């Protein structure tokens, strides 16, 4: 235990249900984003913030794969893999409950699909300053707004959250999915009363970066019916901010004897709140209220911090954002990770002279006489001569034969594009073979049988 104030947890047990087209048989957290798997980015972020140990929550069956993938990356973190049973249907809250024993202090929770260069210190400082129960990070949405989703045209409806934040204090007032609301948004009076302006945001994205108090997981452990963190527990906790300590309970909770078992359901039971704490809060200069009762007497406090506008933040949780981050990665690489990591792997064989903002992974063979722009080439992929590839993602072991024109496409693992094909806005599934001279636009070409085979494996 070196960094004792905060522990960090990265969730990497997601199944990636929103990007089936590109996932293939690999775990979601190993999706290639530029030279590294997806999970490397949140881990790197933590490393930059001087974390030395991270708990990574993975599915049992995927553990070895993830472990070996991460060993190939220049990470110095000590990773503690917490496995959850592969056959279980755990939500994020269930997973947290499952690794309860490992959490010894206040902790950060990150999702494996976060690609960001945001500075977490303002978030953590807000958390410290106000002795908060929770602080979460919000990004402006719109990173992928200029990217066209390849594949057949479908109505892509991004999931949106409605987030209420008190302007003066940055306290979270509510957080709910827009789809959960009906025609009107109901706002309880106490959220508005005496708290000044309430800003309601509809285009912010929850970055899934949470700073949490230790007692929160104690409370979560008790609430066994809650299975997802974002969807259920978070709104629940935010609502609990305004619950008041019942008057009859003796204020002196420092005495262990006075613990009332019936009260265990109440969130306030979990909040360490001694007389001394109260005094500290009252006399602190950081309690943001000079004349009133600090924090309106709220014991549970949740904060929402917006990342600065120039910060990069994407959650790679659907195909569109996956393509978007890959396409833009070369241009934002320096801001994202600094120059330390080469974009074109030393093992890649790049003979092409006309390249612009491309990323090539180990052992990718990019032949001469090709024009390659804004694209990502996965490990062991082969691009033959006389090809034009733009705005595309060529995944591992894919082969593009001669004379093809590929624009805004995702070419899946081990897929093969035979010579003379012209593809625009297409998704080519894993192992699919595009026949010679195919002209295709906005299509999803995949081999259903292959999918079946993968499933059996």
């Amino acid at each position: 235990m070196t960094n004792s104030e905060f522990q960090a947890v990265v969730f990497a047990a997601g199944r990636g249900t929103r990007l089936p087209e590109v996932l293939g048989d690999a775990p979601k957290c190993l999706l290639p984003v530029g030279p590294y798997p997806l999970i490397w980015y949140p881990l790197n972020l933590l490393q930059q913030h001087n974390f030395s140990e991270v708990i990574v929550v993975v599915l049992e069956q995927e553990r070895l794969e993830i472990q070996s993938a991460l060993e190939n990356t220049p990470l110095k973190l000590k990773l503690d893999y917490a496995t959850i049973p592969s056959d279980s249907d755990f939500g994020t809250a269930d997973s947290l409950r499952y690794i309860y024993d490992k959490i010894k202090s206040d902790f950060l929770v990150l999702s494996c699909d976060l690609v960001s260069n945001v500075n977490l210190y303002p978030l953590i400082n807000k958390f410290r300053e106000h002795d908060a129960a929770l602080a979460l990070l919000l990004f402006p949405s719109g990173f992928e707004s200029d990217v066209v989703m390849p594949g057949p045209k479908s109505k892509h409806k991004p999931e949106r959250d409605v987030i209420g934040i008190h302007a003066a204090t940055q306290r979270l007032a509510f957080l709910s999915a827009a789809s959960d609301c009906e025609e009107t948004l109901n706002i309880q009076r106490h959220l508005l009363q005496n708290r000044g302006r309430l800003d309601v945001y509809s285009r912010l994205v929850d970055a899934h970066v949470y700073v949490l108090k230790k007692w929160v997981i104690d409370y979560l452990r008790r609430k066994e019916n809650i299975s997802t963190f974002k969807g259920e527990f978070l709104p629940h906790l935010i609502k609990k901010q305004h619950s008041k300590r019942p008057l009859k309970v003796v204020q002196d909770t420092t005495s262990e004897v006075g613990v009332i078992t019936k009260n265990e359901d109440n969130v306030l039971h979990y909040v360490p709140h001694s007389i001394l704490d109260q005094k500290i809060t009252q006399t602190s200069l950081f309690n943001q209220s000079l004349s009133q009762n600090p924090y309106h007497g709220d014991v549970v406090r949740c904060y929402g911090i917006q990342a600065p506008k120039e910060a990069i933040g994407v959650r790679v949780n659907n195909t569109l954002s996956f393509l978007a981050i890959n396409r833009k990665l070369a241009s934002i690489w320096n801001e994202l990770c600094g120059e330390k990591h080469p974009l074109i792997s030393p093992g890649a064989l790049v003979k092409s002279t006309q390249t612009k903002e491309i990323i090539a992974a180990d052992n990718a063979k990019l032949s001469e006489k090709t024009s390659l722009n804004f694209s990502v080439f996965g490990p062991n992929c082969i691009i033959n001569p006389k090809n034009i590839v733009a705005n595309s993602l060529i995944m591992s072991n894919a082969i593009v034969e001669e004379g093809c024109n590929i624009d805004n496409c995702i070419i899946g693992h081990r897929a093969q594009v035979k010579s003379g094909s012209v593809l625009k806005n297409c998704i080519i599934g894993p192992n699919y073979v595009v026949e010679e001279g195919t002209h295709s636009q906005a299509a999803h070409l995949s081999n259903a049988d292959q999918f079946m085979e993968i499933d059996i494996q």
Partner: protein
Amino acid sequence: MAQFEKEIVQAVLIADNNVWNFKPLSDEGSTALLPLVNVKMLDYALIALNRSGVEEVFVYASLYLQDIRDHIKAGIATYASWSFKMTVHVIGGEGCRCFGDAMRDLDAKALIRGNFILLGADTVTNADLRPVLEQHKRQAKFDKGTAATLVFKECSNNVRLGNELLIAVDRRNDRLHYHQRLRTYQKESRYQIPLDVILGNSCVALHHKLLDPQIAIGSPSMLSLFSDNFDFQTRDDFVRGLLINEELLDSRIYVALLPAAQYAHKVNSWPAYQLVSRDIINRWAYPLVPEMGVYKLQQQYVFHKDNIYKSHEAQVSKVALHQNVVIQEGSHVDSGSVISDSVIGANCRIGKNCRLTNVFLMADVTVKDNCRLEHCVVGAGAIVNEECDVSAGCVLGAKSVLPAKTTLAKTLITSTPSTQRSEEDVAVELESIGPHAFIVSDLTTGDPEDSDGEDFLPQQPLTIPKMGDLLAPLDEISDCSDLSDDEDASRAVTPLPDDTNIFLDEVIDSLSRGFREKSNPDFLILEINSSRYAYNMSLKEVNFNVVKAVFGMQSIVEPANNNVLVAINAAFKQLGPVVSNYIKSEDAMLDCLKALEDVYEENPLVREKISQIVHYLYDKDFVSEDAIQAWFEQLDEEEHAHLRQSLAKLVAWLDQSSEEEDDDEDEEEDD
């Protein structure tokens, strides 16, 4: 050329808009000329405009046009402080009945050439509106559909006087998206904001408890919008209409908030009158404070500590003046009186040993000895005789005379019986308490503007808000009391309608209709069967739900005279064939009784009469004796203790009768 001409800043002042709250003084003269801390309200508004650099003002008056014209003329003649660098025109006519009419009239007269400041004559503000006007002009340059910029002020207290708002504003451009007046009486527990408003904008700021001082900057299009939409009566109609039809009318409203240091309030009722008086005396509206000579440029008062303003010409010897008192010239207070938080007009006479708290005396009022006045307004020239006790928001009309030893609370008094005009122009007999004192009932005088259907609290009795102790906020403590219960309640989701519930609902519908229309039971059976297949119900479920549906019909759930047995009898008479179609076998009967068990839990009327109902079903051969006994056997001793108890007698009786029957049979066999 227009662009070389300097654009002059114009303003419109609407006088006497919605004055019902100022009864009975509103019947005796223009409320714009009502003195507020001894300065007429109109003067406050004019000064505010003058301070904001307005050069031309149109005062729009209706009923008391001549009075206002005279006042303006006198003001100009005596060099009132607003008359410098500002021309004031009084326009209007008797035909104008509401705010909307005034705006339409202004549009027809084509007096307004550009953007203008729109103010009520009852607004008191020290705000400089020039920056707001500039903001409006910038906005209008950017958005051609800018119709108005409304000016609001953050509310600092927890008092509700009907001027408080909840609005939703786009953070980027301050455009108004939602506008709701807060209730005066019963506080809302939650607010409902349309989701479109929030999803349509990336960030919407909700401002709760803003004061609406009735200040706005209007574009020329605002007037024509009133002309085009003749149903706009009030400013709120205009706002609402524009928000609903923003695309159709291609007009948008923007919002400007006054900085915290500036004061603005609307005096639209007696409590507001009290509040604003207090604020002026407490110098919140500086420089609009009594000793600054708001109207006349001369020193009228000497300002003492504890906010006591006393004229040199006033005689107050051996009088205890506590805090916040204004006494104008020529007034005479006798010894032994105690005055606090009050305004005393010119030439008042106050007798010995009077107690005045929160009292507002107009000019020439006489209060005789030993009176106690509290939270009341006394009109000009009124006389309160000895030993009166007037309190809790009383208003005495001008020249009324209160007989000695009168005790009044929450009453409005007028001097003549004829001043009250009812809507039908029928003279209403007023209760008299003296030759020059008649009680005005504030309930019978309907307000033509407030009583239309748009009012969002129609169930509230239309009473004139009365003065009272404003300092004690109504329910600051109770604000959070309702939280703990309703937070979990709001989480609880209503159970999703599963197939069984939908099926039950459909059967209830079918049966209710069949019962009402007395349709052929065969058709009903057909209907139920088709529902059954639609929702894939097993026979057991159908049996159960049909019986439940019969008891779920409206006529049984809420029977006439609470006589559930009669209702059940009627229902089974009509629907009996349907029920017996399903309830045939012993098992089905058991299902039927189980359904009854459910109904027993839900319906208290059935609970009372359960044994009679079971007996009735037995009588009519819907259920057999064996089924009842089998059912009774399996009822849980603890869970259904009460039900078992209710049925015990019946079952015992059934046992007995069956034994008898057995005996009978035996006997028969014997024979």
